[in-house]
Every structure is written in structure tokens, then in C-alpha cells.
């Protein structure tokens, strides 16, 4: 059970009688959407408390309320026995509650030292005491396990994993009593994750209360003392870590019997004459190193590995978004080097990219569903530049039926749709352009389970119809269930290629962490030695 947790876990028998923080009956509504419904949460000092739940279950809203970013519609927050209300992040900080957000709260144009001390800089004669500030920053960076970061470096010049470490240092500099981490390790390299864990365990020993949201079961297993599962805006279960099996936890998260249903995969095809997509020695900056792989028509190729190993960059490079890409790309045997998405979309290449963030990259939220749907296929619904409304309406209607998009009419704003339906609109938009190579960047992130299943079936159907699909996902089950082949990336290079039945969680994790060299990379695939 949880007692033997390595160094530092507070013995359950000695726990403090009263919790440091209690949330009771907290509710929050955003328009017609109920983000939190009478949610409760109890947090003790000197303990690490994990919060799990699907996207949309209310975890982020709960954290934002605690951190003072949003105000609850009802309910109370009790800190150290006294009721409190925060109307801004500054107020929450003053009370000792500090949150490390997923979207970083660092100021890009300011230095690391400025950022670390931003909410309460040391002052002298009314001006900021730069030397004291620098010492503060250096101390905080040391505590966070990142003493190599120079305090004068500008945040915008740092890579994402370093920025996350600065974010952690900044939180520590505020001397929190309650530290909240909202998926704070998602951008870190494996080495940094280990360092952060050491820091968190030490903080627990020092008596901090830690609240952390994560999807990663192994992190929770290693760190947490207790867990709470959220579903549909309410706390459905709180239990000591290790008391429930992973399956039980997932069932609590989705509220019903859990069965990952993937459409059946066809038997591996014999290699066709020319693969639809061929990539050779693709390199870019220092994020992509010498990547080579192929994708046949009818094949679903998955990109796996830890976050930030180059998967997103690979998709962007294929789609023409990156400059200075070296290497060779061939589509159906013909050399292609798209210099922009506009070129990649052209009939001669026929690529589509379902981007990472549907709200800022996939859709124009204030515009109507119809306008969004036809946006990538405007030539199909127009003649000589003039839009043919009838044709547009017809094609739009077809797509809505095909993907079963739930919308209050085609003129409804795209922003009024649920997350899953919004993603369907993004996919449908690209299907209208009739692509032959479909790239997807984490397409099922933040989507309800039902829609996920629909997307899996759709991808398999598209592959059966002859498209080549390359898709990046952070979900191992998807890699195992959907893909004919999986490429595991590590540090910008293809570490391992797994096929068919070889795609197992163990193999994926091992390759992701760059452990072991069981099966050598097949000749002609992966990276050049």
C-alpha cells in the first residue's frame, strides 16, 4: 500500500487531524455547460494528492478556482479552518496557494529572474533590487533542480522543458503552502521529470500540501498518497493510492464498464509498388534528426514516444510549416517539398493536417459550422472564385451526416459545439478536401470516449479507402489499437519501429524511454546509424 513510498511519505497514522484545504459544494457554469457540480475536495498538508479525470470532468476548472483565476458560482473554500474567496491569482498567492499551470504563465520577453520574482520582487528605494532578485532566482532554480538555467536568459529563448522548470522555480519562490500542479510534467524530458519528482517528495516532507493533476498512471503510482477521481464536474471517489487497479480507476473516470473498442485491423498488406508517402533523412533544426519512414496507402502509421520528442515537428515538417527542413519527401513516388500548407493541400500532394489545438489552429470559432467546414475545400464549392451556396450546403450536409456532427444547424457558430463535435468539424473540413495523406496531431485529446470511438472507426475506414494516415497520439492504447505500424520517437529520431502484434505497451514504453535494444530497427527504416 501507500506506506512504503520511498523517501518521505508521511505515515498515515501520523497524519494531521484537520485538512489544510477543503472545498465544499463548489459549482461553476460556463454558459450552458456545467463545469463543476457541487464538487468537494479535501487536501492535507505533507501529502501528495492526485486528481484524475477525463478532459471536461472539471479538474481544470477546480484548479482555476483554487488558484483564483475564476470565481465559483457557489460553494466554499476553507483554508486552515477559515473560509476564503479569491478574486485574482494574486489573492490566492497571498494566501499561500500557488499553481503551476499547463499553459505556462511565464512572460516571454522578460528574463528568468524577472519571471521568478514577478509577483513580489525584492525592492530597494522603490525600485526593484536586481541583485537580490537574481539571488532569489538562483535559489529557486536550485530548489527546483535546475541550477543550470541562467537567470538573465530571456524566457522566450529557452526550450519548452527548461521553461517548465522555470515555472516550477517561480512557484517555489513564492513559498507556497499548497502547491498545485496542472499537468506540469507534460513538457519535461525524462531526466527533468525525475528531478522534479525528487523536489516534490522533498516538499512533501517539508510539510507542503501538493495537489496534482495528471493522466500518467505511472507518475501517480510513484508520487501520490491519495487520489480523487472527477467525473462530470463532481468528485466520484477518493481513495488511497494503490487501492484501486488501473482498470477500476478508468471505469470510475468514464462511469461505465470500460472496454477500448477499436475497429479490427486488416492483415498486414504486402508492400505495394510505391508507398504513398516516403520520407528520407528528414532533419530540422535540432528537433528532427535524420528521420526516414514510409506510409502505404491503406496503412495507419502511429507516432509514439514521450511528449516533445519531435512528433509534432515531424507532422509540421511534412505539412510545409517549417523552414529549413532538409531531407527528401516523396508522395506516390514523386518528389514533393511543400513550402506551405497551401502547397501541401494541392492535388498533386494531397496532404491534410488535423492540428494540435482545435480552438486556435483548427477552427474559426465565431464563424459558422458551414463556413468552417468548407474552409479547406473552397475550390470544390466555388466556381471562378464565386461560392456556389447550393453546392456548399450540399457538401456540408453530407459531411455532417457522415461524421454525425451534432450541431444546431449549419449556421450555428463553431464555438457553440462541444469539444468532440468541434474536432469532428475539423476532421470533416479536411475530408472535404479529399486528401490522400492524412496527418493527425493528437486528435483525440480532450474528447469524450464516445467520439473517440467514432474517430477510430473513421480513420480505419479512410485507410481502407486508400488514404495513408500518420497520427501522433499520447495514448498508448490508441497506438496499440489503431495502428498498423508504430514509430517511437526519442529526441527527434526514430528509435524503434513496431509492427502489428509487436506493438505492445511494454515495447512502446521501453522505446519511449530509450531503454533496451531488443529488436534492431529494420533495414531501410528508422534513422541512419
Amino acid at each position: 500500500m501507500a506506506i512504503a513510498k520511498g523517501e518521505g511519505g508521511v505515515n498515515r497514522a501520523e497524519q494531521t487531524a484537520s485538512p489544510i484545504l477543503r472545498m465544499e459544494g463548489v459549482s461553476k457554469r460556463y454558459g450552458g455547460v456545467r463545469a463543476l457540480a457541487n464538487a468537494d475536495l479535501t487536501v492535507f498538508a505533507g501529502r501528495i494528492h492526485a486528481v484524475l479525470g477525463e478532459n471536461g470532468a472539471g479538474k481544470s476548472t477546480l484548479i482555476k478556482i483554487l488558484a483564483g483565476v475564476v470565481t465559483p458560482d457557489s460553494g466554499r473554500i476553507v483554508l486552515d479552518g477559515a473560509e476564503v474567496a479569491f478574486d485574482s491569482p494574486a489573492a490566492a498567492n497571498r494566501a499561500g496557494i500557488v499553481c503551476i499551470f499547463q499553459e505556462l504563465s511565464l512572460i516571454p520577453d522578460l528574463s528568468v529572474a524577472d519571471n521568478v520574482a514577478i509577483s513580489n520582487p525584492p525592492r530597494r528605494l522603490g525600485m526593484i533590487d536586481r541583485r537580490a532578485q537574481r539571488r532569489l532566482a538562483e535559489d529557486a532554480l536550485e530548489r527546483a533542480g535546475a541550477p543550470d538555467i541562467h537567470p538573465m536568459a530571456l524566457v522566450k529563448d529557452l526550450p519548452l522543458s527548461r521553461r517548465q522548470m522555470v515555472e516550477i522555480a517561480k512557484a517555489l519562490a513564492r513559498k507556497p503552502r499548497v502547491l498545485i500542479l496542472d499537468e506540469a510534467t507534460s513538457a519535461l524530458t525524462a531526466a527533468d521529470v525525475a528531478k522534479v519528482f525528487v523536489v516534490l517528495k522533498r516538499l512533501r516532507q517539508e510539510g507542503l500540501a501538493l495537489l496534482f493533476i495528471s493522466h500518467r498512471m505511472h507518475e501517480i503510482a510513484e508520487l501520490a498518497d491519495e487520489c480523487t477521481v472527477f467525473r462530470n464536474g463532481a468528485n466520484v471517489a477518493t481513495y488511497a493510492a494503490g487501492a484501486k487497479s488501473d482498470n477500476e480507476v478508468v471505469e470510475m473516470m468514464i462511469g461505465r464498464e470500460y472496454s477500448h473498442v477499436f475497429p479490427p485491423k486488416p492483415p498486414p498488406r504486402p508492400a505495394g509498388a510505391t508507398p504513398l508517402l516516403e520520407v528520407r533523412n528528414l532533419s530540422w533544426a535540432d528537433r528532427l534528426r535524420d528521420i526516414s519512414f514510409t506510409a502505404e496507402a491503406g496503412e495507419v502509421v502511429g507516432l509514439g514516444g514521450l511528449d516533445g520528442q519531435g512528433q509534432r515537428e515531424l507532422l509540421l515538417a511534412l505539412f510545409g510549416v517549417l523552414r529549413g527542413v532538409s531531407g527528401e519527401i516523396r508522395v506516390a513516388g514523386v518528389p514533393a517539398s511543400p513550402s506551405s500548407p497551401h502547397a501541401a493541400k494541392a492535388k498533386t500532394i494531397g496532404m491534410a493536417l488535423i492540428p494540435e489545438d482545435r480552438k486556435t489552429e483548427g477552427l474559426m470559432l465565431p464563424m459558422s459550422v458551414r463556413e468552417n467546414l468548407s474552409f479547406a475545400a473552397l475550390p470544390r464549392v466555388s466556381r471562378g472564385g464565386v461560392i456556389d451556396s447550393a453546392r456548399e450546403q450540399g457538401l456540408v450536409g453530407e459531411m455532417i451526416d457522415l461524421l454525425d456532427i451534432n450541431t444546431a444547424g449549419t449556421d450555428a457558430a463553431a464555438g457553440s459545439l462541444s469539444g468532440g463535435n468541434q474536432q469532428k468539424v475539423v476532421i470533416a473540413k479536411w475530408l472535404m478536401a479529399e486528401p490522400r495523406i492524412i496527418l493527425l496531431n493528437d486528435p483525440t485529446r480532450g474528447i469524450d470516449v464516445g467520439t473517440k470511438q467514432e474517430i477510430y472507426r473513421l480513420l480505419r475506414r479512410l485507410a481502407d479507402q486508400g488514404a495513408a494516415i500518420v497520427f501522433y497520439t499520447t495514448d498508448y492504447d490508441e497506438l496499440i489499437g489503431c495502428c498498423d505500424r508504430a514509430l517511437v520517437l526519442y529526441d527527434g529520431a526514430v528509435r524503434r519501429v513496431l509492427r502489428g502484434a509487436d506493438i505492445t505497451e511494454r515495447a512502446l514504453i521501453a522505446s519511449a524511454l530509450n531503454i533496451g535494444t531488443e529488436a534492431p530497427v529494420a533495414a531501410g527504416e528508422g534513422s541512419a546509424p
Partner: protein
Amino acid sequence: MSDWRYWLGQNRGTLLAFFFFIAMFAIYVSNHPAGFSANVVQTAANKGVLLALVAMAQTFVVITAGIDLSVGMVFVLTNCLASWIVVGTGWSAALGVAGVLLTGLACGAINGLIVIYGRLQPIVATIATGAVYFGFALLLRPVPGGDVYGPLADALTGRVFGVLPASMVALAAVVLVVWIPYSRSAVGRAAYAVGSSETAAYMSGVPVGAAKFCAYLLSGLAAALGGLFLTFVTYSGEASAANGNTYTLFSIAAVVLGGVSLFGGSGSAIGAVFGALMFRTIGDLLFVFNLDPLWQPLFQGLVLLAAVCVGSARLFQVRNRLELFP
């Protein structure tokens, strides 16, 4: 990387502006018929300081990712007001100066309130307030005229120790007393934070509203200092819309030349000052090279065009095009 390298990187814009200005000014005085004489420098300084002060005003707002299209009109308004009240005895002139500066602060406050609490976009809000300020300027001076307290005017437009232009000394004093403390204060840094990323600033507990308001206040103050100085130079007040618009637009040019980012979050008023001086020197260069003054506006425009094109050349280093679309 050593500290020195970081400092260089962060202040690159300002340093470039400084070097370009020195280079241009050197060319100017070396080709001037009267040579590097105190007179030449004094005249140039007086003209340059006017734009430098308005450029400083613009910088305060641009750092917060805003824009103030009313600075030129505040400049004109305070000029007209000064020509009325900065007169008489030493004491009444001093009170007049205070009144002028307070008016500048008030204009800045109005701009700030409308942008922050009215939640209007700065570009449209300041176009409208500019019209209002100009209207008041017209009320004060329907025709050019007025006077100013002689001793003060002469002192500030003359020379110190017989050599240094007093206007430059005064400008340096303003930078030391207003800009440096501001840029190193918490509220100044908050302004940079807000301009760089308002959401991140809010999440970090930075006082967004206070930072913006302070920026607009100081903008009004700096513009008022400029208007005051204009009165000292011209000994009169004139409600000229053309002049006001010119100064507004040139202040934006000076700010860009000085390495301040129009997107907010970086740059320094010192850079903007050098940008303004650079811009003024360009016009004077035409004079010394005996170019027809007819060609001056074109030359200034072409230099501005070239400067912004070169300034954006850094964007060609962008590897991921998505960064071009924030």
C-alpha cells in the same frame, strides 16, 4: 553565456539605435558648413528633443502592447496651454508649468480610463480622444499667439557651460528622473509583462490595470513635457492639426527605429530617444548635402521604409512559420 552577453542581447535595439544615430550625426556635423560648432549642435538638439519627448511618450504605451495616437494632440494642447499660463513672474510661471504637466497627466488618465475600464481598443480610443484634445487646443489658441516666461525658455533652449545644449541636458534629466526609475520599478516591469503576454501576466498576479494606467499617465506627462518645450522654442502656442498628426506618426517611427517592439513587451525609451534623434538628423543631412529641401519628406519616408524592412529581416530567421501567427 556570460552576463555581458545577455545584457547585450536584451538591449540590442537600443544599442543599434544609438550607434546609427552617432554615425549619422557624425556625418552631419562633418559636412556642415559651420562644422562641429556648439551652435550647430544646439539647433539640432532643440529640434530633436521635441520629437524625443513625444517618442518617449509613445514608448510608455507601446510597451504595454498599446498605441497612443493622441500623443501629438496632447503635445499641441499643452503647447497652447503653456503659451497662456507659463508667463509672468517666476512663481506664476512655475505654477504654469505645474498646470501644463497636470494637464498632460489628465489627458493620459482619460486615455487610460477609456482603454482599461471602457475596454476599447487603444487605436480607436486614442484617435477619438486626440480629436477632443485638439478641440481644446483650438479653444485655447484659435490663432497662433501667446508668450512664455523668457528666462526659463532661454535657459532650456540655450547652452550649458557654453558648450552643451541645455535641451539635451534637460532630456537626459527627464530620462534619469522619469524613465529609469519607472523601468526599474515593479509597475514598470509589470508594463513589460502586460505587453509581452497579458494572460500570463494576469495569471502571475501582475496588476494589469494599474500597469496600463500608469503607462498612459506617463505618456501624457512626457507629451506635456514636449509641448512645454515647444513653447520654449517657439515662444508661442499654435493649434496645428498637421503638426500634431506629424508628431504622432513620427513618434511611432522613432519608437520603431529605436528598437521598441510594436507588439509590446520589449524596448526602451532610451532607444526611442535615439530613434527620434536619428529621424531628425535625417532631415538635416539633406540640408548639409545641399539636397533640395523638396526631397526631404521623400527621403525621410524612404529611410523609414528601409528601416522597417531591415528590422523585419529578423523574421526571416523564424524556423517554424506558426510563430508568425501569434
